[in-house]
């Protein structure tokens, strides 16, 4: 977060896409997240991907629940309508929005608390219906906005800033989505722009439900007590929990498909990513599950496009709705009229 306003004058030298728009036309308001928050990197990737795809910004709709992650739709695509709903219920808002107008591109942003706890039922059912949208989980294993409680995606044994240890196994949203029939399933890391931007492009153009479960470190609460790099250590363990949040750099990685990459987080803890090379069978759900499992046993988190269903059906296909968005049908095409009503009356006698 910085409070220096962006320059209002446009730089004519900025590259333009085929719509004649620059990257700036895809930006939003200035972020109020913590400096270095992974979520901001995801916003940047979304901006890049929409720019790359030449999407008219106003033909996208952004929806979210509540959380730090849910705030981000304000920070990209300022020319698009946005809807910051209630906690955990973005999927139903997106379902309704999509029903009303199948012609917009839908981006749903959620957090791991928003999706894996309060919103789990809605997440599952949006997948089941095949709502045509990009469903981005900005997954940090914690409740950022309410100050660092564990989410249902936190690892067993991980320690919170308050010193508590998580005793429950994590929910893997990718496995869940695969199991429930999502058409496009990917995992990525907020700091891996090279991987994330193309994945977003793929998800936005996929005609069905597309999940990106994006690991997005929380600079403030992904903080293990034991780490010598944590500032809790420096301040001596007994300050108010969220007191000082030193500005940090976002964590970025740059590694080859097929490769393995160890990432050191802000607090010194590590995780191992494995970037898929695209040589696995993208269209086999069972194989995708096996792949995840195999790497999990090796302590690796598989990233990349994990599964893609070329035959996936979106909700409107299943429902056999007309091509014209329902919100654009003329009233005359909807009302059966007085004459029909007379015959309905007759049936009721």
């Amino acid at each position: 977060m910085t409070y220096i306003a962006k320059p209002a004058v446009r730089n004519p030298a900025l590259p333009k896409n085929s719509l004649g728009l620059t990257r700036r036309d895809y930006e939003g308001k200035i972020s109020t997240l913590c400096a270095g928050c992974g979520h901001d990197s995801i916003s940047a990737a979304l901006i890049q991907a929409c720019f790359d795809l030449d999407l008219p910004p106003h033909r996208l709709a952004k929806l979210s629940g509540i959380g730090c992650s849910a705030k981000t739709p304000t920070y990209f695509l300022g020319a698009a309508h946005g809807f910051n709903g209630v906690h955990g219920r973005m999927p139903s808002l997106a379902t309704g929005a999509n029903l009303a107008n199948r012609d917009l591109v839908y981006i749903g942003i959620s957090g791991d608390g928003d999706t894996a706890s309060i919103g789990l039922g809605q997440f599952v059912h949006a997948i089941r219906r095949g709502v045509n949208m990009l469903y981005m989980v900005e997954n940090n294993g914690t409740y950022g906005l309410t100050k660092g409680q564990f989410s249902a995606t936190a690892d067993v044994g991980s320690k919170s800033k308050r010193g508590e240890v998580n005793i429950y196994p994590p929910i893997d949203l990718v496995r869940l989505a695969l199991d429930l029939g999502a058409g496009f399933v990917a995992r990525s890391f907020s700091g891996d722009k090279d991987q994330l931007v193309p994945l977003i492009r793929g998800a936005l153009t996929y005609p069905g439900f597309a999940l990106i479960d994006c690991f997005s470190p929380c600079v403030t609460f992904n903080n293990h007590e034991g780490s010598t790099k944590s500032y809790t250590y420096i301040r001596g363990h007994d300050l108010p929990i969220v007191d000082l949040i030193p500005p940090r750099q976002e964590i970025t990685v740059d590694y080859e498909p097929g490769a393995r990459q160890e990432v050191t987080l802000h607090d010194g803890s590590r995780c191992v990513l494995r970037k898929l090379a695209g040589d696995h069978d993208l269209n086999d759900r069972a194989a995708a599950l096996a792949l995840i499992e195999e790497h999990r046993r090796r302590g690796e988190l598989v990233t990349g496009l994990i599964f893609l269903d070329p035959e996936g059906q979106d909700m409107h296909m299943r429902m056999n709705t007309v091509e014209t968005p329902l919100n654009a049908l003329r009233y005359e095409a909807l009302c059966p009229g007085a004459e029909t009503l007379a015959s309905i009356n007759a049936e009721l006698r």
Partner: protein
Amino acid sequence: MPVGRCNEFVVRCANVNGTGSSSANALLARAFYRMGLPIAAKNIFPSNIQGLPTWYEIRVSEAGYTGRRGSADLVVAMNPQSFEEDVASVCPGGYVLYDSTKSINTARKRDDVTFLGLPFMGMVQQHTNQRKRLLFKNICYVGALAALLAIDFDVLTGLIGEQFKGKERLINQNVEALARGRDAALAAFTCPLDFHAERRDIVGDKILVTGNRACALGCVYAGATVAAWYPITPSTSIAEAFGEYCARFRVDEASGRNKFAIVQAEDELAAIGSVIGAAWNGARVFTATSGPGLSLMSEFLGLAYYAEIPAVLFDVQRTGPSTGMPTRTQQSDLIAAAYASHGDTKHVLLFPSSPKECFEFATVAFDLAERLQTPIFVMSDLDLGMNIWLSEPFAWDDSYRPDRGKVLDYAVLESGTSFYRYLDVDGDGIPYRTYPGTHPARGAYFTRGSGHDKYGFYTEDSAKYRENVDRLRRKFETAARLVPEAALEAAPGSPLGILYFGTTAEPMREALEGLSQRGIELDALRLRAFPFTEGVLRFIECHDTVFVVEQNRDAQLRTLLLAEAGIAPEKLVSILHYGGLPVTADFLIGSILEHVTPSMQRPTTGAAS
């Protein structure tokens, strides 16, 4: 036959649910109607699927009283399980028609009623198929009633013919069963009974329809394209009937594709979420639910109120609290709806009292929702929603066009009109909105349930917050000017007024006449909406005492009147009915008589309009 008994009686069929009785009973009800007689039919059914007692009360009333009467002149006692209770429910001098195939315990019999036994089970022994035996046994008792109550046999056979059109064998078997029943009755008893039916021409072009079907049809005519719902008794048939009508009238002929989308959501939170999402995106969309669903929707309803999203909800009320009695009626969600959600919220409610009004209020609800940009609740109930009612036919004016409210389209935005989402441009508290995707450069805004200022931007500033919620309060005042005015149903110019709504209307009509015969005159106002209109306030002002009749324990409407209209509490006298069965004129008369003292009835000083 004593005057007034012809075409004035109640038949109560006591059955076991799941035994095919409801179609037989519906046939019976419709037969009276086809004879030109006003009827009321109340299906009193258990919250299970098969094997429990169920009752179907048909009131025939030449006088046109179509509220529930309560007692029965003739009981068709087909359910051994409830036999005793059913016998007890007959008026002195009435009749019990029962199946005498197996002998019946005469100890259970009453002396003041006549028992009419016919071996219905025996009459259908020729059918080897058990299902058919069950079904035709019911048709047999309809036949017997045809004889006993002088129902036109041609009307019955006509109805059978319509129902099974093209299936000659079924028609023949049914007609045969009818005839068997009739012949047995004619042989065994003096037919018809002292009370019975006589053809009249009273119902005119009235139709027989449930409130739920009327709501569904209203949504079709209002141009609703999206519905999101979750099954719950007694609201389910709204969504289901909407689906039926859409399948008939909303499939694009050329492509065979649907000009509608109905989502059976995973629960009520998702249903209202999808309603809000679709409404935000410019569709006419609704949900239908009942109490438990309404409770689950509360958080989202606060969002819709505060972010100002049009949403239409049909709340078909049932007996609460909690799961309560899901197959019984009540009007007990008023407070839950009017103040749904935490924080300072107020919602607009409509109170239909007939299928005709259900149909009309659907359009009113969508127009109001979009005009006011807020949720609108159509408060129906189980009695109105699931029972068939004699109703004025639905009417439609083809020149109707939806009021989509203050929506700025591409052209207006392109013209450079400035747009701020929550600005009160017109002084009515209602801001302007745009649909997503309208214009490349103008009109986008960010919708949120968190603090926002009049421009639509995020705020945590006290003054800006207050400015916005004060406007919402003003908008609610605007709502009071836009909702349907209450209906003055009787104005003898009494110092006593009576206020009621919804399904109390029919029995009230009867009760007012009954009271009048006892010398008690009441001015009667039927409420049709919340917030309260000028007319309601004036009505209360003009009367010394106003009875407030509602079907709940806690006098919820009275609470709303006290809180929102600043009325002196001693002026409002509650009449409360909350046992779950439709309210009767007798109950109303009795309750009012308890309260009316001679001193209340001072001579009329002027017309109270």
